[in-house]
């Protein structure tokens, strides 16, 4: 003997009441006159009648079936609940889903964010996470998000409890996105449920609803971050790349020739107004085509000197010319010691083929304002040529570039998390206006 889905009549308005819960529900709401009826009584005793300023239409209509978790579920009830935060009412919708074999599930919808909810029977273990209230369930820790008093403001359809408009429950939400654990205290009993965030489109597909679901607004408590995973992973990847880079740099240093091929000290006499140009002895630049560093070290102080330099291949006569000013000034003022410039200069010439080379050197000096009256000092300088040196600056540029994605992700991640927690009990108060 199987009881059929009953069609009964509302004792208040006489309208027909369709019962979809096969006796598992305890109350049903007359869609015509909004009387809440006790379905455990044969005549459907009126539990409550409520007034609604406007009829609220569920986005998924009552009686609609959808496929969830490998089973079919029918929407048999709908309620609107609200919490007050700083005297602002926030409302969300709850759908009661039913399958006569598998029982009840729920869907909640707030600002386009959906959560698929199942009551659980275990009692999650109270704990703390970074000093905050938290619960542990099936190996995951859920951080406390919000405590609030939720009140029912509108109901339609059937419920597995005796629903009343105006009834309030103390609700606590704990999140571990995309999951959320909620406890509701009802008549002294603490009921826990486990929810999982769903995209509106998933719900639309499951229930075969036409059109598109409302676009979600803002970030919801258990919404998974689109910046999947913690930024730690990007930092680890970034640091691995940096160490690889540093390793190649070290390898390069080991395998590069990096050796001095010429060194000589000179003195420049500023008093000589004549031609100071000269050429160095010929030196060997060995190895594969690679760079050559030419370093000029001087003892200038509060003076400058200019060098016209050329690296000339003795065999081909091919010359590379360049000029460098070296100036170094220092002194003492009210702020203390100061200095400016440098006493040396280094130039790296790329792609120099092996061969026999010499340098043509032409120092230039002219007394400027401050030194005119001084007896010009001899300037001592040395020229040094190194073959195949490691160039550091590309590495120094590359290191921050490699870490940039991780930094970017960290900013994105925390930006999202900040939006999430703005709606919680831990929004930090000051600063944000909402």
């Amino acid at each position, binding site marked *: *003997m*199987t*009881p*059929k*889905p009953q069609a009964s009549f509302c004792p208040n308005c006489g309208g027909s009441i369709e019962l979809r*819960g*096969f*006796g*598992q529900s*305890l109350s049903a709401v007359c869609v015509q006159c909004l009387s809440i009826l006790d379905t*455990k009584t044969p005549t459907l005793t009126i539990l409550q009648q409520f007034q609604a300023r406007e009829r609220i239409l569920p986005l998924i209509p009552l009686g609609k079936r959808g496929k969830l978790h*490998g*089973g*079919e579920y029918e929407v048999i009830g709908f309620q609107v609940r609200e919490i007050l935060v700083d005297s602002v009412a926030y409302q969300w919708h709850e759908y009661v889903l039913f*399958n*006569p*074999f*598998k*029982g*009840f599930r729920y869907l909640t919808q707030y600002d386009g964010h959906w959560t698929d909810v199942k*009551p*659980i*029977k*275990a*009692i*999650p*273990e109270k704990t703390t996470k970074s000093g905050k209230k938290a619960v*542990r*369930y099936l190996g995951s820790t859920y951080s406390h998000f919000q405590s609030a008093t939720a009140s029912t403001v509108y109901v339609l359809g059937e419920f*597995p*409890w005796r629903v009343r408009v105006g009834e309030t429950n103390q609700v606590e939400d704990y999140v571990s996105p995309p999951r959320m654990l909620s406890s509701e205290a009802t008549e*002294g*009993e*603490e009921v826990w449920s486990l929810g999982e965030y769903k995209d509106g489109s998933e719900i639309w597909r499951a229930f075969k609803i036409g059109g598109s679901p409302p676009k979600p607004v803002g970030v919801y408590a258990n919404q998974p971050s689109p910046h999947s995973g913690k930024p730690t992973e990007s930092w680890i990847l970034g640091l691995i790349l940096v160490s690889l880079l540093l390793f190649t740099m070290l390898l390069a240093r080991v395998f590069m020739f990096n050796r001095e091929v010429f060194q000589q000290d000179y003195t420049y006499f500023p008093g000589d107004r004549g031609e100071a140009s000269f050429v160095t002895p010929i030196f060997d630049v060995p190895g594969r085509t690679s760079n050559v560093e030419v370093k000029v070290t001087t003892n200038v102080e509060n003076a400058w000197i200019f060098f016209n330099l050329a690296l000339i291949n003795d065999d081909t006569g091919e010359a590379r010319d360049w000029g460098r000013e070296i100036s170094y000034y220092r002194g003492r003022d009210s702020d203390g010691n100061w200095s400016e410039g440098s006493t040396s200069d280094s130039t790296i010439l790329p792609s120099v083929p092996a061969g026999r080379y010499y340098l043509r050197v032409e120092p230039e000096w002219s007394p400027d304002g401050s030194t005119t009256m001084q007896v010009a000092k001899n300037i001592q300088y040395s020229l040094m040529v190194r073959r195949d040196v490691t160039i550091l600056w590309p590495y120094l540029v590359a290191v921050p570039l490699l870490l940039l994605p991780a930094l970017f992700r960290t900013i994105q991640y925390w930006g999202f998390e900040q939006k999430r927690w703005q709606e919680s009990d831990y929004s930090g108060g000051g600063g944000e206006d909402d």
Partner: protein
Amino acid sequence: MSQPRSNCPNCGGTIVFRFSSAVQTTCEYCRSILVRTDVDLKKVGEVADLPPDPSPIQLGTEGIYRNKAFVVVGRILYEYEQGGWNEWHLMFQDGVSGWLSDAQAEYAVSALSKGPAKLPPSQNIYKGLSFQWDGTIYTISTVTRARYVGVQGELPFEYWDKSEVQFADLRSVTGHFATIDYSEETPLLFRGEFVEFDELRLKNLRSFEGW
């Protein structure tokens, strides 16, 4: 395994026992409650018509729990403020009996626990009271007064003509479940766990129109 057969002392109908250690059964023809004695069956009462109830399980439903096949051979039906609630009596393939409770399509499998548990009397229990059995902490989540509605089929003990029965439901952080049953003078402890409908792979269920 040969199933013991007998005849109803009231109407003469054939009574087949699926559960060899059944102590009590009901006659499916005349609804007499029959208790097995050493020699025959004795009628001790009669079951009123059981009200229609929404459980998808029925006598003869088969399933598997922890790799052991079972068949539903009897039940006790209670009513409390959340509606009807069934304690289905299971007979496992190894002849052991167990219980499958179904309240609003939430399921739990349990068995009588014959541990050393010393249980407090019914007036001394309250919500929040904790016990530790075999290393698991169980906490009383609800104390329920239920109304006995009726019995059906084979049961491992004599059980009929009850009125109000008190139960304490206990839970753990790991989904374990226990019930202290105060229907007899000595409280009985049943321990088990909550299960998902799909886990039990139930067959021979009742049907629901449109489903």
